[in-house]
């Protein structure tokens, strides 16, 4: 089987995770505050409560061996979560669409992923790191597999930037995140490794 995540990619992934954790630890103030002057904040700048985030993402290049250098994907997502000041748990629901490059042109419906995740805000509310892990569902028939096949999804946003949009809206830019969308794990696996750029609008009611 040639279609596997090679050791070089795994080493890079481990390196990214380590770097993100190091950065998070090094920059996390104590006690941290997620506040940037939002209406929901209390007098200490603590931001507690529910939120909804809508995001779009795009990835273009790949360095995975035995893959194309150009693997365009894009998509959108909705996160529903609860924040306890600088920490949040959320459920991430995303639709990731894939652009064909082989045999014919077009856009494939890709995969739907539903992943619980954890988010941490630090750096005076300017920076965040998040991770999500859950199932991924194939949305179209491929030559090898039927729609509905269920595999795994993982996303790590090592360092993203946050700004206050208005009293109820935070804007977030994740210049480079890593996602593994793998709706087929058995037989010949279908595993998309994506280096994404995401833009998120978070509504804090």
């Amino acid at each position: 089987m040639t279609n596997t995540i090679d050791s070089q990619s795994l080493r890079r992934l481990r390196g990214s995770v380590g770097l993100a954790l190091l950065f998070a630890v090094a920059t996390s103030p104590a006690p941290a505050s997620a506040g940037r002057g939002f209406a929901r904040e209390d007098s200490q700048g603590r931001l507690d409560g529910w939120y909804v985030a809508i995001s779009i993402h795009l990835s273009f290049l790949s360095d995975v061996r035995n893959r194309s250098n150009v693997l365009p994907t894009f998509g959108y997502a909705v996160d529903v979560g609860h924040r306890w000041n600088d920490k949040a748990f959320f459920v991430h629901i995303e639709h990731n669409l894939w652009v064909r490059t082989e045999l014919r042109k077009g856009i494939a419906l890709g995969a739907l992923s539903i992943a619980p995740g954890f988010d941490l805000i630090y750096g005076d509310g300017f920076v965040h790191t998040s991770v999500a892990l859950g199932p991924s569902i194939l949305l179209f028939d491929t030559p090898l597999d039927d729609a509905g096949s269920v595999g795994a999804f993982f996303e790590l946003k090592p360092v993203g930037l946050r700004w206050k949009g208005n009293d109820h809206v935070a804007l977030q830019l994740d210049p480079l995140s890593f996602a593994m969308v793998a709706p087929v794990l058995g037989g010949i696996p279908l595993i998309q490794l994506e280096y994404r750029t995401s833009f998120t609008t978070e509504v804090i009611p």
Partner: protein
Amino acid sequence: MKGAAATVLALLLAMPSSDTRAFTISSAFSPGCHEQISVDAFTLFLEQTERTRGTESLPLTWRRVAYVLANRIGIKVTSDEEAQLLLSLIVGVRSPDTGGHSVANITQLRSLHGDLDPDGQYLHALRAPDDDGPAGDASAVAGTRRSLERTVRRAFEAFRLPEEEQYGSAIMYIDFYGEVPVPVWWPAYYIARASHTLQDSLATCFETERAACARWLACSTTSTPSP
């Protein structure tokens, strides 16, 4: 001086360019000429040939892939034998252009098509780096002929092997899955690989034959159904 240079540049840009004709393989960026020509031959072969050889039964996955390809091309496959033939032809005819890699794997494509080894160029009926002038014409034609003969010989050698050794797997890139080993029948795979060279030679060498190949040449410049 600047004005003169700008004028020369404008004239160069305005000069009409001639068509460069070549057969393409099927991708998001190009129609599937090589595949179409090979499948046309495949269809004729199925119609005109009494086939007596058996075939290894295809795993369900690959039968499915063959049926999907056949459906996209607009032909019917009715047995494992035909399905395996179709897979072998598609994988084989694409192999000189892709080497089994993605058509968008820029690094691999560059190394494959910028191959300085003369045989790498003769595989596409092209001149080798040193094939200049009239002597280069003869050298390129002779090299292309050698390339064809070598590949056809490999097909016949594979055909003479015991039946179980006539089957193997070759790498093909499938969208989103990456490079996967596809089961092939070696004689058909090598015939398809040789036909790629033959098709390229028609597109690049034999000007006077073009009328006879109008349909296929049209395929090289217009969109056609691709697998």
